[in-house]
């Protein structure tokens, strides 16, 4: 993808970096290099050495002054080489809850048969350094605090190094387009879990689910049901796999309903629903979700929970 001149010279390209697709190989287009603070002090030292050499008209003084300056210049190649050719991709980053820290997992691979020294990756104020041996790969985990639900777009991740002399800083800003899903923060506003219970006819009425734990009997275990409900005693007695049946489950499915927390603000409603989903999943209940725009049929399990939470995260987004 060629760049136009204005894109090429845009300041953002140097600070924020070009947008990166999933997988990036660092090359001259993405690596920039400038003297660091330590480099400027070295320049001052070289200047002093030059003045001393001029003043005493000292040939060997000139030799070593120029040698130092030339070595400093040459070191830029090695700074560049230390970064270039790295394969960088965002690994799958797990969703997280607002208020927590999102972890950005970065997969870094060296394929050029060179040892890489002291590369640091920074995101916002967080920084991590690593060495990478030839043909090695590593996964870095940078964390970022997230406040709001929805898709979280990580900021520019900057890879930098000041190897070998610490006088030049080579850096490569990367802006990955992959986003991390952020669920609402689970907050219990104290609402009782109002579930809409449906009988087979379909007339709904509300009731509290206090009787959930009442053991009613056994029924043959079906794959997909939570392991918690397996009746281990029966299994141990080699009677076969049965699952416990509780009163609430026997006839009713729980619906976590948007309407049931009507007096809360939108975000709080979502937080409350999120809390319920987590607690239902923990208890192994089968639950459904009903939002104004979408309805998920009752079920349980990891995938179902993720689906429900995703609906909450992206509600009206």
């Amino acid at each position, binding site marked *: 993808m060629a760049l136009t001149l204005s894109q090429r010279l845009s300041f953002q390209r140097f600070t924020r970096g070009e947008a990166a697709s999933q997988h990036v190989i660092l090359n001259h287009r993405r690596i920039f290099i400038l003297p660091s603070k330590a480099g400027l002090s070295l320049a001052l030292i070289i200047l002093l*050495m030059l003045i001393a050499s*001029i003043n005493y008209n000292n*040939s060997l003084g000139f030799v070593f002054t120029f*040698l*130092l300056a030339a070595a400093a210049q040459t070191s830029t190649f*090695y700074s560049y080489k230390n970064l270039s050719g790295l394969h960088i991709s965002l690994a799958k980053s797990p969703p997280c809850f607002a208020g927590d820290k999102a972890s950005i997992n970065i997969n870094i691979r060296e394929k050029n048969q060179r040892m890489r020294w002291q590369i640091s990756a920074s995101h916002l104020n967080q920084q991590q350094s690593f*060495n990478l041996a030839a043909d090695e790969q590593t996964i870095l985990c940078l964390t970022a605090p997230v406040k709001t639900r929805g898709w979280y777009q990580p900021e520019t991740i900057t890879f930098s190094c000041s190897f*070998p002399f610490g006088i030049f800083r080579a850096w490569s800003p990367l802006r990955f387009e992959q986003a991390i899903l952020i669920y609402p923060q689970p907050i219990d506003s104290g609402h009782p879990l109002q579930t809409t219970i449906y009988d087979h006819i379909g007339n709904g009425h509300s009731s509290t689910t206090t009787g959930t734990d009442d053991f009613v009997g056994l029924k043959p275990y079906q794959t997909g049901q939570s392991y918690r409900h397996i009746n281990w005693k029966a299994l141990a007695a080699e009677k076969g796999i049965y699952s416990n049946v509780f009163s609430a489950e026997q006839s009713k499915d729980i619906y976590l309903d948007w309407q049931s927390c009507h007096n809360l603000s939108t975000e709080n409603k979502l937080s409350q629903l999120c809390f319920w989903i987590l607690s239902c999943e923990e208890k192994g209940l089968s639950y459904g979700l009903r939002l104004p725009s979408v309805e998920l049929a009752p079920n349980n399990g990891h995938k179902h929970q993720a689906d429900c939470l995703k609906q909450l995260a992206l509600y009206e987004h």
Partner: protein
Amino acid sequence: MNTNTTQLQPSLIKLLLAIAGLLIIPHIGQLNPLFVSLAFALLVWRGLCLYYPKLLPNKWLLLPLAILLGFIVMKTFGMAFGRDASSSLLIILMGLKLLESRSERDAQAVIYMGFFVLITPFLFDQRIELAIYAMLVFFALLFALIINNSQSNSLKNPALLRICGSILLQAIPLMLVFFLLFPRMIGPLWSMPDEQSAVSGLSDQINPGSVSNLALSAETAFRVRFINQAPSQKELYWRGPVFWETDGQRWVLNPPRKKSFQRAVNWPEKTSDYQYTLMMEPHKQFWLYALDSPTSAPDKVSLSADRQLLLNTKLSRNLSFELRSSISRRLMQLNKEDRERGLKIPENTNPKVLELAEKWRSISAEPRNIIRQALQYFNREFYYTLTPPSLGSDPTAEFLFETKRGFCGHFATSFATLMRAAGIPARLIGGYQGGVYNQLGGFYTIRQADAHVWVEVWLAEEGWVRIDPTAAIAPNRIEHSVDASLQRLNGEINFILNPPDGIRQWAQQLNWVLHSIDFYWQNAVLAYGPEKQHEFLAGFGILDWQDMITWLSIISALMIGLSITVFFILQRPKTDPVQQAYLKLCKKLAKKSSTRLPHETSSNYFARIHSYYPEKVHQLNILNRLYLASRYGRVAGEKFIKAAAKLKI
């Protein structure tokens, strides 16, 4: 994992201590021993802290210590901050900074100071050995920088050493360009305090014993390369300062007056003149040496009536001069003032000396005869030695009538006094005689051991004539150089008598090699100052400093551009030949058919284009099989490359 707060690795501290020690070593003997030992003490302190961390000073101790040491330096050198003061201060500061170093940034600062300290010994001495030594220390400093910035906890790291070495090698071309083209300025940016440095060679005073101190020194005074032929060894009189005034004890050099420069005549150039390049070592004096006698003065040097070559300032760096000399004498006029100066004898001259001169004059008034008598007198009773007995308040008489043993200084001073007493104008000439020829480099090295003093007398028909009384006593001295390496204080004087054999011959050849290296070092590197740079660059049409800056920018930009190009060519991923041949084949096939889609395998593509090349189906199948075999099997790729090249469409 923040990098700024990491502790320094002990291995890095050890490396820095070793480097600091190596940086101070060349200063031993140059700087005040107090400061050298203070600097070493600070290093030892830091070294002990590695094993007893409790010894590490805090800043409340370090700050007063730094102020105290700075005060001692100031007290010693005063406010004039020259090379001694700044070198002393730097090595001490380096030690203090090491004591204070805790973080990566401190180490970086210590290394930067190290780079500066590295060039300070050159202000005292620029020998090639020191340059090689400094190059090794420079490498170590670069390596320390790399260790510091890679946070490596071990120094045994071949990968980092390799990087360090290749950076150093790659830096050399750019350094050379800057060395050649960076405009050199004449004179210092600001005047530096006159340093108390040892003057080598002849000084501006001669007493009878002063030259014998030099006979043990193999140090080089200057080097000479003749452009055409060289005169014979015994004609190699290198004429320097001319002494007219004496107080009976010693002969003192008075700078020539302005009139003397106006009276000086440039002799016309002749084909029999000797032309040569003379490379002076900095001897901190105004005068130059030239083969007896120079015909004219080169640029920026003035010629006086008594044919001394004089500089405007004391020579403090290596410089080379193109000179012309003629050994044939020219008749000159002796004016009244010079005659008076050349006849003046101190009032306290011993009557015995005057008596002796009078005796010779009474035998024959002819100056030639008097000179012959005097030389015969020396030849009869005198003995040439490096360790003459010491003389008292009346050295001439004591030498002539009592001790009768002496070196060239004794003979020349007493001879000159005798001539004056006998009414012949005489003056004392300081310089060097002889020189060691280096067959490898084709140049003469004139060493301090060759220092010599002789006399010039005025003869009415001939002008100033060189008379060397030493030659009358020790002809060997004039025909062969003194062998400084074999000289013992109380032994016989050894001369270089050729030809040496066996091991000595090897030693001589090795010596030639070393001296040749040193010659080129002096001539090409150390003497490369404003004049030499101008001369060298003028050959390329680069005349002034603007040109130099322009060319410096152009050439360094080109070099950096070139290295970037080479760098990227080397970085480019290597495509393997089989894949290249395959892509080429696909392109060829695509001419008549459709191009290969990016996701298509070779089998799919070849199958798809069968319809375009119905007569080549068999060949394509073979190609496909070969390609796959080279990719996934053990068949060598050459077969496929050959077959692909053979395919004609």
